[in-house]
C-alpha cells in the first residue's frame, strides 16, 4: 500500500448529503476483476451526458477543478454498498483525501486500505472549506497527516482527529495482512480454545 504523509492540492466540493456508493461508482463498472482503471467510471452519471460527452456543470469537469485531489462532501458520504470499487475509483481518478462531517463505516475503513485519508470535521469547518473551494484553483489546501492539520490558502489551520493505529498504518504504508500474520501464534491458540469450547464450529 502507498504511504500517505501530506498533500497540497486543489479541493472541490460536493455539498449533497448521503452520496452513496452507487453514485460514486455505478454498478456497470463493478464487473472488472482488477483494482485499477476505475477512474473513468467515477461519478459517471453526474460527470457525463447521455451521449457520453462531459457534463460541463459537474464540478470536477470545470477547468478550475481539473486537478482536484481533495473532495469536500456532504454528510454521510460513501453510504450504501461495501464495494471497495468506490475508493479505488476515487484514487484512480486522483482524489486522495475526502473531507466530510461523517462517513459510512465500511467506506471509511476501505479508504485506509488504499492509502487514502478520509477526514471528519464538524459542520462549521466543513462549510467553511466548502466556501473556500468556490475559489477554484486558488483554493489549495494542505493536508498534513503527521501533525493532523489542514492548512487553508490563507494560512489558517484546522486540526483533525484520527485513530492512532490507522494513522500509523497510513504514514508507513503498512500492509494489514502482514501485520496480522505476525500474530499467528495468538490466532493459533485462539483456534485451539475454539475447538474445545465450541466444537460444532
Amino acid at each position, binding site marked *: 500500500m502507498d504511504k500517505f504523509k501530506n498533500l497540497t492540492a486543489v479541493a472541490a466540493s460536493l455539498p449533497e448529503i448521503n452520496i452513496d456508493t452507487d453514485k460514486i461508482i455505478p454498478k456497470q463498472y463493478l464487473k472488472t476483476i482488477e483494482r485499477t482503471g476505475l477512474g473513468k467510471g467515477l461519478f459517471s452519471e453526474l460527470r457525463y451526458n447521455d451521449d457520453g460527452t462531459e457534463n460541463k456543470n459537474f464540478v470536477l469537469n470545470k477547468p478550475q477543478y481539473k486537478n482536484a485531489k481533495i473532495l469536500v462532501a456532504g454528510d454521510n458520504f460513501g453510504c*450504501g454498498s461495501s464495494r471497495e470499487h468506490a475508493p479505488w475509483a476515487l484514487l484512480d481518478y486522483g482524489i486522495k483525501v475526502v473531507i466530510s462531517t461523517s462517513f459510512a463505516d465500511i467506506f471509511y475503513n476501505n479508504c485506509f486500505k488504499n492509502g487514502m485519508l478520509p477526514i471528519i470535521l464538524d459542520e462549521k469547518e466543513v462549510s467553511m472549506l466548502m466556501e473556500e473551494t468556490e475559489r477554484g484553483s486558488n483554493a489549495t489546501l494542505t493536508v498534513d497527516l503527521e501533525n493532523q492539520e489542514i492548512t487553508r490558502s490563507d494560512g489558517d489551520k484546522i486540526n483533525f482527529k484520527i485513530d492512532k493505529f490507522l494513522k500509523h498504518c497510513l504514514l508507513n504504508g503498512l500492509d494489514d495482512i502482514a501485520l496480522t500474520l505476525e500474530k499467528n501464534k495468538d*490466532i493459533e491458540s485462539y483456534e485451539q480454545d475454539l475447538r474445545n469450547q465450541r466444537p460444532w464450529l
Partner: protein
Amino acid sequence: MSKSRTIYDKIWDDHLINTNEDGTSLIYIDRHLVHEVTSPQAFEGLRMTNRKVRCPDKTLAVVDHNVPTTDRKNGIADEESRIQVEALSKNCKEFGVEYFNELDIRQGIVHVVGPEQGFTLPGTTICCGDSHTSTHGAFGALAHGIGTSEVEHILATQTLIQRKAKNLKVNVGGTAPDGVTAKDIILSIIGEIGAGGGTGSVIEYSGKAISDLTMEGRMTVCNMSIEGGARAGLIGPDEKTFAYIKDRPRAPKGDDFIKAVTYWDSLNSDRDAFFDREVYLDAASLPPVVTWGTSPEDVVSINGEVPDPDVITDENRKESKKSALEYMDLKPGTKIKDIKLDVIFIGSCTNGRIEDLREVAKVVEGQHVNENLNAIIVPGSGLVKEQAISEGLDKIFMAAGFEWREPGCSMCLAMNPDKLTPGQRCASTSNRNFEGRQGFRGRTHLVSPAMAAAAAIAGRFVDIREFAK
C-alpha cells in the same frame, strides 16, 4: 467479566484475539461468505503474495450478482459478467473453497444461502464482501459487510481488524397490525433514525413486535440495518431460531446441537446491559409504508403524500431532497396512492424468501397483473424456487401474469440484464432506492412484498389493508 453485557458485547468478547492499547482489535471470523463481485481482487492478492486460504471449511462461495435470471444452461452472454463468474469458479478450485455455481440447486443470493444451509449460526462472527451481510444478524450472529481488502485479510488470516462499535437498541413494542410486515417495520425505523442514524453502531432489535416475527421476517429487518447506517443488526436467538437451524445441512448435529443450543441461549443481552442509545417504536401505530425519494430514509405512509422539502431548514438537506424529487419526477403533495407504476420487482436478499413468495401468492391468486406494467418474481435461491414450485405458487404467479425467474440478485442492483429503462417507475421489495440503482435513471419505491403484489394488480400503490378486504 461480571459486568452486564449486550449480545454484541458477548459475541465480541468471545471472538477477541487481542486488543492494542489504542482499541483496535483482532477478532476471529467463524464464517466467511464469498461472491463474484467483491472477491476477484482479493484472490489475486493472495496469489501475488503466495498466501493460502487459511480455513477453506469456514468459507463458502456462491455466484449471485451477475447471473442472468432467464434460462442459463447456455452460459452467460455478457462477457464481463461471464469473466467474473469464471474467475470465482477458478479461484475456488485453486484455493479449495466450496462453491455453488449457477446450475447448482443450492445457488442463490449469498444472504439467502447462508441461513438456508445452516452455515449461519448464532453467536458466530460472519463476514462477506457485501453490505447486506447484516441479514445474518437475525440469528444472533455478529455479521457485517467488508471491503475487498478485508475479504483478502480474512481469507489469509481468518481474522479481521476492528474497533468496537457502539450499542444501539431499537425496541419495537406492541403488535403489528394486519398488513404491516417486517419490511414496514424496518423502513419505519430507518425513517425514524435516518440513513446515517446508526453510523458507528451495532443495532440490537428487541421488543414484542420483533420476537413475534418469523425468522424470515427477522432477516428482512436485520438486512436493512445498513440502510440505517449501522455496521450490523442483531436479534437475540430464541426457540424459533433454534428450530429454524435444526437439521440444516451445515448445522451442528446430535450432541453438538444440544451443546450449541446451551451456548446460544446464554447470549441474549443481560437485563440491565448498557446501550449507548435507545430508540422506541410502537408497532401498533405503524402503517404500511412506501419510499418516495432516493434515500431509504424517505419513508411515508401509504395514506400519506409526497412531502414538501421547502419546510426543511438545513440547506444541504433541503437541496438533496429537492433533487431527489426531481429525479423521482414527483411533486410535493401528490398522494402516494396516485403514483402509477411501470415495473414490479419481487425478490432480493430482503424479500426473496419462501414466506415472501407465499405472501405475494395470497394477494395475487385469481387476479391479473395490470396491463400497463411488467412484473417479475425472482426467488432468492434455487431451494426457494423448488419449494415454491412444490406448493404450486409458480402456477399462481404465471396465471396472474408475472414472469417467474431463476434465482439471483437480479433487478435489486441490475448488474445482470434485468434493469429499469430511463424514467421507468418500479415498486420493489429490495432495499435501495438510490439513483440508478435498478437501472440508469430508473425510479425505485421500496415496499413490502404484499404491497408490491397489490400494486402489481392495481397498477398504482394501494393500501394492502383495504385491498385484502
